[in-house]
Each structure stands twice: as structure tokens, then as C-alpha cells.
């Protein structure tokens, strides 16, 4: 039982990271912290993909007569794309935070809500 | 070939006229010439269909079908023919009356009034000739929408409030109940066409059919089955010509016309006998007749009294349709025509009184018969027709209803008809009595002076015509009876 749990340690890390990130997004009012949470959340998925491509004892998929076992490169390539998307999302999110700060003078969610109710 | 064009002409002409009326709005004379010309032409078109119809020639036209199998199509059949004849003839009379009334009372926004009126008539024609429930539903809704501006004509708070009731009840019932009932019919039978003998027999279980019947009856809000009748008194805030043609003829008749259409051509009389709720609807109609008559008794406002009388008379048609004997179905058809003539006369008389004397309450009418003999004479004829006394045509329809009811031993219906006749007499005869026999109430310190006389000529002309029509319909019921015979396939 314990063995089985420990054997899948990569998934446990993924789940913990995912929930941590998700919790931060939901619970933090600071917009930058929300983005940090979002990043952790996405990173957990990157790890999920990367770890699933790993084959025990496998090497990088390079054509070489000495190498018999390869790791699956496809998830790694996929996640490269997802990382790019993640970077773009973070950049856009941070840009929005800057603009929000310029327009409102704060990046705390509760304060933002109050300010627009008055307006 | 020509038949198709006649139908399209009948439906399209009022719509074309509305456009012309809008364009000639700047000049009242031109505008009213267009209205009158359109009304006369429409009557000629509809009239020319009558011989074709009596000869049994099929008159049918299909335009397009948004959903496969559900087309916008028109077909002439006896019931629709009767309705169209009555409505188009009364449009002429009512146009004459409108001109007198609207000018006599200096009403604002007259162009809008005539435009909406013409659109309402076009919808009525479409409704009368609808070949299937879908087309009928479209015309039904467009009739509601085109009469809404007429009800709110005065644009004051009362008009707006009444308008909201009007729209909410008519649109509400039709969208919430009628439309789903139509779609259910479509799903269950695969057809929406009006066919002799109905389309439901053998396809819909009596239980579902019974529920559908109730949904249809309450979905057709224009038929004013209680408690869906409140829009009709509310609509009385409109100028009298609107009440006269639309809320005594076109709109309300559209309601009961739809009821008869649905009972005869969708359910079919034989199938209805299997339904448990057919009797229930009959009782509801009976209840409406009696209750509305009692309410009418207590109304002092003349137009409101007439409105409740209309609610009661409409349920006659529903009652007659659900007695489920061919004779009473004939009575239903006749009553649509007969009540139209009688009630429009009464409304126009009310309008005449308002125009000439600015009186709106029943209690103010003592002695008015001597000042306005023609008006009150016509009123008396109309009242007799409502009660159903010969030589007014109202007798005819009640006679057939009673015969039908006795034939199938539907004694509840017989009792309702008898009691309501007494009630009708009780709320109409005192008006006639007071108008002719009571002395005019002296208005306090104000000298009676020269006072008012008869209403303007167009008004008098119009109401005398319809009163005469009521009598003529009794004396020469030939074509109407022939259509009624065709309806029940005799």
C-alpha cells in the first residue's frame, strides 16, 4: 500500500502543487499573488506532462546505437508549448495589473470592488 | 389561380393600405379616402370569394415554410369565410364611424390610429384564412401587437396601465400556453393543418388530449374565458371605434374563431366526445357566461358594461362549440357573425353618446332617447339582438344553440342559455327603458337649454347600417346558414 503511494510520488507532488496554486488564486485578494498562484497551478500541470513522459532508465531520444530505451519526447514538446502559453498569460496578467494600478491606485481586490461601487 | 391572388389580396391589401395611410398622413382627407377605399376594396375581394367558396372551389395558397411541414399557408373554409365577410364589411362601416368620431372628438395621433387599424385588419384576414395553426398563431400575435398602440392611444397613465394588462394577458397566455400546445400538437400528430374531422383522433390518447384541450382554451386568451378575461375591460380605455371594431369584432372574434377552429378542425367533434375535459370547458364557459353577465349588471360605465357583456357572449360561442352537436356548431358560427353586428352597433351607439353628449355612465342616460332617437333606436335593436329576441338576428344563433343542446340532451347548456338570456335582458332593457321613457334629469342649476342633438352624420349612418344589418341577417340568413351547413358538412 505505502509502496504504491510512494511509487506515484510525482502525482502527489502534482496534486499538492495544483491545490496550492488553486487555493492561492481563490483566497488571495492581491492580484499579483493571484497570478503567482495561477503560475503554480499551471506548473503542476507541466510537471504532470513531463513526468509521464519519463521512462525508467530511459535516455533522451537521440539516435545512438548505445541507447536502447528512450523517454517519450512528445509530452516534453507539448509542454514547451504550454510553457510558452503560460509565460504569455503571466505577461498579459502582469500588464493588466500595472494598468489596474495606474487606473485605481491599488491592486487589492476588495478595495477595487469598493471603488467601483462608489463610481 | 385567381383564388390564390384573391387570398393574397385580402391579406395584403390592408397592409398595403397601412403603408399608404402612413405616407398620406399629412393630409387627413387623403388618408381617410385611402382607408375607406381599402375597406371597400377588401370587402369586394372577400365578397367575390364567397360564390367560389359556396361552389366548393378550393382556395389555397402556400407562401413559405420555416420548418419543414409547417408552412405559412392560407385556405378558405366556411368558418373563416364568415369571419372575413363580417370583419371586412364592418371595417367599412366602422371607418365611416371612425372618421366621424375621431374628428368629432379632435383625437390626437390619428394617422397612427388608422395605420394600426389597417394592420389589425390585415392580421384578422390572415387569421380568418389561416390554413394551419402556425399561420393562425402568427396572425393572432400580430393582431395583439398591432392593437396595442390603439389601446394605449391616449398615452396617459391609465392607458399605459391598461395596455400592460392587455399585452401581458394576451401575449402571456399565447406564448405560455397556446404556443406549447401548438408544438405539442405538432409533435403528437405530425401536422398542424386544419382538417375536417380533426387531426387528433387515433393519435393522441384521451388523457393527453384532454389536457391539451384545456391548455388550448386558456391559451386562446382572446376568447376571454374567465379568469383570462381581464384584458377586455382594460382595453376599453381605447377610443370607441377601437372598442367597436376590434374589441367587439376583430380581436375577440379572433379568439372564439380560433376556439371553434381548434375544436372543429384540430380536435374534431367525435374525438372531443372522448375527452373528459370537454365537459369541464363547457362548465367553465357556462360559468363565464353567467358571472360576466352578473358583473355587467353592476357596471355603471356604459363601455365597461358592454365589455362584460362581450365576455359573456364570447363564451356562448365556446359553449356552443363544446355542446358537440352539429346544430350548435352552426350556432357558434352564426353567433360569431350575429354578435359582431349587434355589439358593434352598441359600441358605436356608446361612441355616439360620448361624442354628442360626453356621457359615459349608464345612470346619465335618462331621456337621451328623445335627443338622439336614431342612436338609441339602433341601440335598442342591438340590445334585442344580444338578448336574442326576434326580429333581431341574435335569436337565430341562440335558436340553433338550443336546438343542438336539446338534441344531445345537454341540459346544463340549455339552463345557462335561458338564465343568461334573462340576465341580458336585465342589464340592457333598463338602459333602453330609461333612454326613451324616463324624463331627462335636470342638471341642477344648469338650464337644459338647447343641449346636444344627434351625433354627427357619419356616426349615425354607421350605426344605423349595422342595426339594419342585424335585422336583415334575421330576415335573410341564407348565405350565413349555407356556410354554417358547409362547416358541419351537411
Amino acid at each position, binding site marked *: 500500500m505505502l509502496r504504491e503511494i510512494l511509487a506515484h510520488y510525482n502525482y502527489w507532488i502534482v496534486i499538492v502543487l495544483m491545490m496550492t496554486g488553486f487555493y492561492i*488564486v481563490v483566497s488571495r485578494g492581491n492580484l499579483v499573488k493571484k497570478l503567482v498562484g*495561477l503560475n503554480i497551478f499551471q506548473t503542476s500541470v507541466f510537471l*504532470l506532462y513531463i513526468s*509521464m513522459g519519463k521512462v525508467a532508465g530511459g535516455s533522451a531520444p537521440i539516435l545512438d546505437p548505445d541507447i536502447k530505451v528512450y523517454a517519450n519526447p512528445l509530452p516534453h514538446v507539448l509542454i514547451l508549448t*504550454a510553457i510558452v502559453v503560460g509565460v504569455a498569460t503571466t505577461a498579459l496578467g502582469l500588464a*493588466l495589473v500595472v494598468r489596474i494600478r495606474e487606473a485605481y491606485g491599488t491592486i487589492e481586490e476588495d478595495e477595487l470592488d469598493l471603488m467601483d461601487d462608489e463610481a | 389561380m385567381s383564388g390564390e391572388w384573391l387570398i393574397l389580396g385580402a391579406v395584403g391589401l390592408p397592409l398595403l393600405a397601412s403603408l399608404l395611410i402612413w405616407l398620406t398622413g399629412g393630409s387627413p382627407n387623403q388618408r381617410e379616402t385611402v382607408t375607406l377605399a381599402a375597406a371597400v376594396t377588401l370587402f369586394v375581394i372577400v365578397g367575390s370569394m364567397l360564390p367560389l367558396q359556396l361552389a366548393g372551389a378550393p382556395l389555397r395558397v402556400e407562401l413559405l415554410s420555416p*420548418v419543414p411541414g409547417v408552412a405559412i399557408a392560407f385556405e378558405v373554409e366556411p368558418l373563416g369565410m364568415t369571419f372575413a365577410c363580417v370583419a371586412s364589411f364592418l371595417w367599412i362601416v366602422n371607418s365611416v364611424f371612425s372618421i366621424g368620431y375621431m374628428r368629432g372628438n379632435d383625437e390626437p395621433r390619428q394617422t397612427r390610429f388608422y395605420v394600426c387599424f389597417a394592420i389589425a385588419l390585415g392580421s384578422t384576414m390572415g387569421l380568418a384564412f389561416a390554413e394551419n395553426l402556425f399561420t393562425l398563431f402568427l396572425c393572432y400575435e400580430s393582431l395583439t401587437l398591432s392593437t396595442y398602440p390603439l389601446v394605449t392611444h391616449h398615452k396617459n397613465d391609465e392607458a399605459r396601465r391598461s395596455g400592460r394588462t392587455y399585452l401581458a394577458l394576451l401575449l402571456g397566455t399565447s406564448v*405560455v400556453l397556446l404556443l*406549447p400546445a401548438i408544438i405539442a400538437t405538432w*409533435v403528437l400528430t405530425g401536422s398542424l393543418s386544419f382538417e375536417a374531422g380533426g387531426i387528433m383522433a387515433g393519435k393522441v390518447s384521451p388523457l393527453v388530449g384532454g389536457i391539451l384541450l384545456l391548455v388550448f382554451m386558456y391559451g386562446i386568451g382572446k376568447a376571454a374565458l374567465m379568469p383570462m378575461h381581464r384584458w377586455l375591460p382594460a382595453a376599453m380605455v381605447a377610443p370607441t371605434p377601437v372598442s367597436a371594431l376590434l374589441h367587439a369584432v376583430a380581436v375577440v372574434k379572433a379568439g372564439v374563431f380560433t376556439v371553434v377552429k381548434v375544436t372543429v378542425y384540430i380536435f374534431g367533434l367525435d374525438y372531443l366526445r372522448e375527452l373528459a375535459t370537454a365537459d369541464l370547458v363547457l362548465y367553465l364557459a357556462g360559468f363565464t357566461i353567467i358571472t360576466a353577465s352578473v358583473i355587467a349588471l353592476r357596471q355603471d360605465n356604459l363601455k365597461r358594461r358592454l365589455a362584460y357583456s362581450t365576455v359573456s357572449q364570447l363564451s356562448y360561442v365556446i359553449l356552443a362549440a363544446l355542446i358537440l352537436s352539429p346544430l350548435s356548431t352552426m350556432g357558434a358560427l352564426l353567433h360569431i357573425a350575429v354578435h359582431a353586428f349587434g355589439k358593434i352597433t352598441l359600441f358605436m351607439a356608446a361612441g355616439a353618446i360620448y361624442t354628442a353628449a360626453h356621457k359615459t355612465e349608464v345612470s346619465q342616460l335618462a331621456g337621451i332617447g328623445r335627443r338622439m332617437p336614431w342612436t338609441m333606436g339602433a341601440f335598442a335593436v342591438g340590445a334585442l339582438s344580444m338578448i336574442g329576441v326576434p326580429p333581431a338576428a341574435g335569436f337565430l344563433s341562440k335558436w340553433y344553440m338550443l336546438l343542438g343542446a336539446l338534441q344531445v340532451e345537454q341540459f346544463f347548456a340549455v339552463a345557462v342559455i335561458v338564465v343568461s338570456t334573462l340576465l341580458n335582458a336585465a342589464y340592457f332593457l333598463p338602459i333602453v327603458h330609461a333612454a326613451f321613457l324616463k324624463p331627462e334629469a335636470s342638471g341642477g342649476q344648469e338650464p337644459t337649454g338647447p343641449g346636444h342633438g344627434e351625433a354627427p352624420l357619419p356616426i349615425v349612418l354607421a350605426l344605423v347600417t349595422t342595426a339594419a344589418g342585424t335585422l336583415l341577417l334575421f330576415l335573410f340568413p341564407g348565405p350565413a346558414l349555407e356556410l354554417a351547413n358547409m362547416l358541419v358538412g351537411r
Partner: protein
Amino acid sequence: MSGLAAHLPALQVVVPLFAAPLCLLAGRAGLAWLIVFVASCLATATAAGLAYQTFQHGTLSYPLGGWAAPWGIEYVVDTANAFILLLVSAISTVVLMYAPASVDREIRQGRRHLFYCMFALCLTGLLGIAITGDAFNVFVFLEISSLSSYALIALGGHRKALTASFQYLVMGTIGATFFLIGVGLLYMMTGTLNMADLQARIPAIQDSRPVLAAFAFITVGLALKAALFPLHLWLPNAYAYAPNVVSAFIAATATKVSLYVLLRFTFTIFGAKFAFLDLPLHWVLLVPAVIAMFAGSFSAIFQRDVKRMLAYSSVAQIGYIVLGIALSSAAGVAAALIHIFNHGLMKAALFCALGCIFHRIGSVRLEAMAGLGREMPWTMAALVAGGFSLLGVPLTAGFISKWYLIEAAFEAGLWWLVVLVVLSSMLAVVYVWRLLEALYFKPVPEGRAAVAEAPLSMLLPTLLLAAANIYFGLDTRLPVEMAQSAATILIREQIW
């Protein structure tokens, strides 16, 4: 097929994709608009060509870059996504016709060419989602369209556009990531990302926990993107504060494309048996859909900002679409697709008409719009046509949607559902009526100068969309036939 015709699937995405950097290079608003407009016209023509080809030859497969599936990315075009492609590109073209005057009014000079660049990217993303036959590729295009729409929404005039966009960004990213997790789990179990391969391999392992988890993640992720109640919270603000052109485009297309992906995954890849018989997707979709119908319409009644009103109405309308999906019959899916099409038309028409109003009076609040009926008769005519279509008045496109939806519900034997659909439509009557009452029956507010009709370049596309609402209420062959054939293609196993 030879020559250009054979490469239409690639061109469908590549043309708008290349328009985006060209806009950047153009640097001027006028030129950028022209580039995107031409690209959008070409995309519409391509979509029409593809639709025609699917009618002629059935499903088309296009290996991107010559790499055959399942190694390469495959573009697959059948009637179902040809329908969506046509809708998205056609709406985009009409909205772009409308855009210049509106953009000049609402977006600062110097940013306008960037606006068009983002628009092109958003269009690329939406078209890509629809056309691709590769699950991971869906994610990529989903993010392309989402990222560009966050930017587009943030360009709105009010500062609340920024917070709305941020909120959308957070929720959208979570949705997309959920989808990504689901796709990852599927890949783990099947070793493929190609949709056709997934479809073939899933049945053997469908009871394994990762597949169940994948299904849940994908459904929730897409429901978030599609703004299904209660995951709709990002939508009202995003639609309300975006520039009018963006509201019109996104409201008409973005959520629809997500719903299409949902259809594709549930009915084609996982299969209706798995989703509706083994798992309770029926109730999972039905209950939120019904609540959305009521909650959306009910919230719309209390809005004084008409764009927000329409945004809440979108929540309700998405409920109708999902309801069709939840019925899980061919008739239900066809009804959903028909409503996807018709709702796109009506919301585009309505938002465009509101844009015209905003262009003239600088506000779309009910009280500011009072009495406009007389001053902007044509815009109002479009608004009325769109509003009637929203209600489902006969002879409008909306009626056709309701007709097929109710018919499908009857067919499934769910009478009570019919009652609910009808009752919720009555709520729509209330808010549309409030709008009409303000426009036609309320006096002009004091101090408002005389208002002229909107400029022709905005008015004509608006009227075109309004006319489409009427036209597709009369001649329903195109949407209905495509939707019905699409439904049979999407549903690989009938369960009823």
C-alpha cells in the same frame, strides 16, 4: 480535389494568422483594418468552400505540414465544424465592416492597429479550435483566442474593463488548464492526441479512473470557457465593459466555439453511452442549464446597463444551448447547434445596435436611452428585430431555435422541461420589454441634444445582422439542415 481547394483547411487558419503580424507591420489603423477585413472575407469564403466540400465529399482530413496523423496534427472538417467555421468567420466579417467607426470612437489613436492585430489573432484561435482534429491543438488555439480576447476586453473605455479582463484571465486560464489536465490524462492512458484515435482507444479503458478524471476535467474546463452557470461569473463584466465591436464578436462566437468542443468531446470522443448512461452527465448539464435559464434572465431584468443586461441574457441563452446538449438525442444536439447559430446572429445584431447607440450618446444605460426610438429609427428597428429574435417571436431566427428545442424536449418525453423553457422565455419578455418601453414610450431625458442616426458604415452591418435574424426565421434550410447533419456526425452512438 487539387490545387488551392485541397489546402483550404490550412488556409482557414493560416490566412487570419498571417494577417496579425501584417497589422503590426502596417502600423496604421486604416491599413490594418483592410488587412484583417480581407483576411476575414477570405476566411468566410474558405469556410463556405469547406462546407461545400463536406457536402460533396463527406469528412475531409488534412495532415498539417504533410505529417500524417496520428504523428502530425490533423485538421478534420465535417459538417459539424464547417458549420461553426462558417458562423465564426461570417460574424467576424460583418462585425469588421462595422468596426472602423466604432473603433475610432472608442479606442485611442496609436492603438487601433494593435486592436486589429488582436482581433485577427482571436479569429485565428476560434477558427483553429473548430477545425483541428488534435486534442492538444485545441488547447493551443483556445489559449490563442483567449489571450487575444483578454487584451481586446481590456481595451474597453471604462477602467472596469481592466478588472473584468483580469477576472476573465484568471478564470479562463483555470478553465484552459483543466482542459489541459484532461487531455494529459487521456494521453497518458491512450498514447495519442488525435481525436479519431482517442475515440477508437477510449472504449477499451473507459472505466479506468484516469479516463473518468479526464472526462470530468475536460467537461468542467469547457463549461468554464462556455460560461455555463455557475461558472459564468467572468462573463457579465467582460461583455459589458469590452469595446462594442469586441462584445459583438465575442458574445456571438467565443462561448459557442467552446460549446462545440464540448459537443465534440462528449458525443464523438467519449461517446454518449459513456457520458450519459455510465456517467450522470445528463443531470450534470441539465440542472445548471435550467438554473442558468432562470438566473440569467432574472438577473438581466434588474440591469440598467443594457450591455450587462444582454450579457446576463447570454448566460440564459447558453443555458438553452446546454439544455439541448443535455437531452443527448440527435434532435437535442441539432437544437443546440441551431441555437448556437441563431444566438450568434441575435447577439451580434443586438450588440452592434448598442454600439450604434453608444456611438451617438456615449452611454448604453436605460435611462440615457429613453426616447431614442424616434431619433434613431433604423438602429432601433435592428434592436427590436434582435430583441424579438431573443424572445423567440415567430418569423425570427429565435423562434426556430425554441421550436426545435421544445420539439426535442417533447421527443424526450420531458413535458416539465417544456414548461420551464416557456416560463423562462417569459422572463426574457420582461427585460426586452423594459428596453422597448424605454426606447419608445419614455420621454427624452432633459438636456440631451438631438441625436442623429448612426453613421452608415455602422448602420448597414447592424441592419444586415438584424435582417439575418428575420431571414433565418423564414428560410431555415441552411442552419437546420447543417445542424441536423452535424448532429448525426457528432453523435457516434445513439443512446435513445
